Each structure stands twice: as structure tokens, then as C-alpha cells.
């Protein structure tokens, strides 16, 4: 996945535009960073990368950039 695709997945999960997100942003500070967002991220990763992270795995990431690095 390229950077744009990763950002699109995260933006969609929290119902934001990609332009509104930056790598430095703290995930917990995003208004819609909740169980639905985490599940949406897990679904995208399992679909695109064939990996099955737990909610705890995803919640352990601090920033948007940290999560993007995991989506390699």
C-alpha cells in the first residue's frame, strides 16, 4: 500500500478527509477514534495484507504515522 492509500483507510475509519490528517496527529485525539474505527482498520488490513491484528495491536499505536508504518 502506498502512503495515500494508507491515509485514505485511516481517514475513512474516522470519517475525515485525508487533507485533515497528518502523520503527527495523535490517534486518541481524533473525534471518531473508537471501536468502529479500529474494526474498520482491522478489516482493511486483513483484506489488503492478509494479517489479522487485534484491537489491542491497533490501539497500541500513538500517532497516525505509527499506524501507517504498521500498514506496510
Amino acid at each position, binding site marked *: 500500500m502506498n502512503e495515500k492509500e494508507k491515509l485514505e483507510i485511516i481517514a475513512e475509519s474516522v470519517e475525515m478527509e485525508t487533507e485533515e490528517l497528518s502523520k503527527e496527529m495523535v490517534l486518541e485525539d481524533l473525534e471518531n477514534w473508537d*471501536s*468502529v474505527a479500529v*474494526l474498520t482498520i482491522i*478489516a482493511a488490513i486483513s483484506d489488503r495484507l492478509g494479517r489479522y491484528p487485534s*484491537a489491542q495491536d491497533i490501539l497500541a499505536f500513538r500517532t497516525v504515522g505509527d499506524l501507517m508504518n504498521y500498514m506496510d
Partner: protein
Amino acid sequence: MDFHFQNKQITGVLSILPETEYRMEDEVIDPNDSKVKRLQKVIGYGSRRRVKGNTCMSDLLLYGLRHLISSQQLNPDDIGAIIVSTLCEDYLLPSLGCILQGELGLENDVYCMDTPQACAGYVTGLIHAFLLLDHMPNKKVIVCTGEILNRKSDPNEAKYEHPSFGGDIANITIVENCHSSRDIYANYFTDGSRRNALIIEDGGFRNPMTAEKLKMQTNNLPCMGVSMDGSGVFNFVQKEVPPSIFELSKQAGVTVDDIDWFLFHQPNKFMLQKLAGALGVPFRKVPMKLTETLGNSDSGTIPAIMTTEAADSLLSHNNLCCLSGFGGGLTWTSIIMDIGNLDFCECITSDL
């Protein structure tokens, strides 16, 4: 475990609904809360049915069985076995199958067995029925499923932060011997090491129910305290179910493209869309509206989609169907079989 059956068929499916209907908005503290709205969009929460405060599973099932008998769609003398799969037993002892046998005044040699298999309960119930039919050539097996986990003594007493997934329903399926051109294939898997992903912790002998726990459940945890690791269950379904269906298709000598209906357990719209995607099948072949109309009723979901979304098709002509139940255990089990030209496939509303 793999199964191969010959000359067995489903001949009728009946769903029995409680008359009380309510909407998701009626059970949450703040229906306009953004998290509730987001959950509704993904899960597909909508309307549900709830039994009255003193209604038990046997009441719903007997309502349906008496309806079938009085309308001459079922002759009680033809019943050879009753298989019941529900988490909502009337009592710890005796089992529901025995209660139904006694209330209907059936012969003493009717085989009665309860198999509480939660979301896999309909498929395992059918597998049991197929196994039994080899021993009763001239009899029928009645498979009873459903749940009443939404029952409340006072529906207004507590509201939740998030809506519950449940919905109350009972179903009766008639299974019998026949001369069929297509064989039935089934498989069954379980992984008890992941059992905590879906669990009702209180009320058994490990953690006996107390007044305090019951109050906490009523106020905080809908559906009798069902506790779920949402992402764990999602990953389990995505990882285990598609390969098991591909393998079953191979055994049945068909491809997923040959299958007319994927009659899956109905956890929520999101999971079903992802499952359809993983199988590479179009959404139109995978009914997924049940969580919006009747909710997730565990063992009751697959027959409920048969009597609603798929009813016209199952009544009018033969369909190659893939049934799959997955959930508590964790257990996943599927069947590929022909279903169609049913004698009845309907949903009735009771006063219960």
C-alpha cells in the same frame, strides 16, 4: 469433521415472532450520540422484537408447533425426534425437547435432545437431524432454534449506552428423508482455546448468578451479559470461515459461483459484507438485512433469513444453498445442500 449425507431434505421453515416491536433508539440513553450513530451505520441496527416479561422459549415454540399442527402442515404422529438449539432454556432441568414432547403428548420413543450451540446452533441442529434420519425412515425431525435474550421484566427499566445486538425469535424447521439427486455436504470445526472471545460469564456453576450481578447485567450489559471481543470475533470469522467454505465446495463438487444463496448467521452488516468480499460473491446472494429488521438472534438467524429475505425463492424453486453458522465456542460449521419447493416458509406473529 466432514459429513456426507444422502436423500435428506428440509421441507418447511416457520419463524415465530413476539408481537412487541421496538427500535434501536428506544433502548439507548442518547440515540443522537455520535458513537451510537456510527455503530448504527456499520452494524445496521434497526427494529427488533422482544418477548413479554414472562414468555419462555417453550411458549414461542409451542405456539409455532400448534400452528403447524392445526393448519395440517405437521402431523404429530410423524415426529421422530426434536432437536432444540437455544441458550434460553426454560429450566436447567428438564431440557426443552422433553417439555415440547410432553406438552404435545407425543409418543415416549420420540428422541429429544437439546444442543446449545449459540450462533452455530442451526447448522449443528440440521447435522444432528440428518444423522438421526438414517434411523427413522418414516419419521421427521423437528429442529427448533431461537433466543429470547432481549426479555426484560420491565422494558423501560434501563437504557444502554450502546444498542444491544439481539432480537427475540423462535424457528421450527422440518427435516425428512427423500429421494434427492444432490447429496448434502457439511463440515464442523471448533477452537475452545479462543472460547473467551464470546462468553456469558455469569449464571453457570463457575460464576453463579447473584442479585447484584443480575442488576448489573440489566443495567449495563444487554442480552443477559453476553461479553464479546469484537475484533477477535471479526478476525476469527474472516480467517476461518472462507477457507472452510472453499474446502466444502470442493468436496461437494461445486464452486462458490454455483451457489444461489449464502444463508449465513447474521452478526452484523459489516461482517457479512466483508465475508462476501472474502468469498468473492455478490452481496445479492448473501442476505444481510436481518440486523436491521429483527436483530441477531444467535441460533435463530439463518431460519429467519429463510422465512424473510429468501422466502419467495425457497418456496418457488430449488436453490443450491450454503448455510454457515459461526460464533461461541468458537465454532464454525457449514452445509451445502439443495433447498427449495418448501411446503411452507413463513413468519408468523404471536401474542407472546
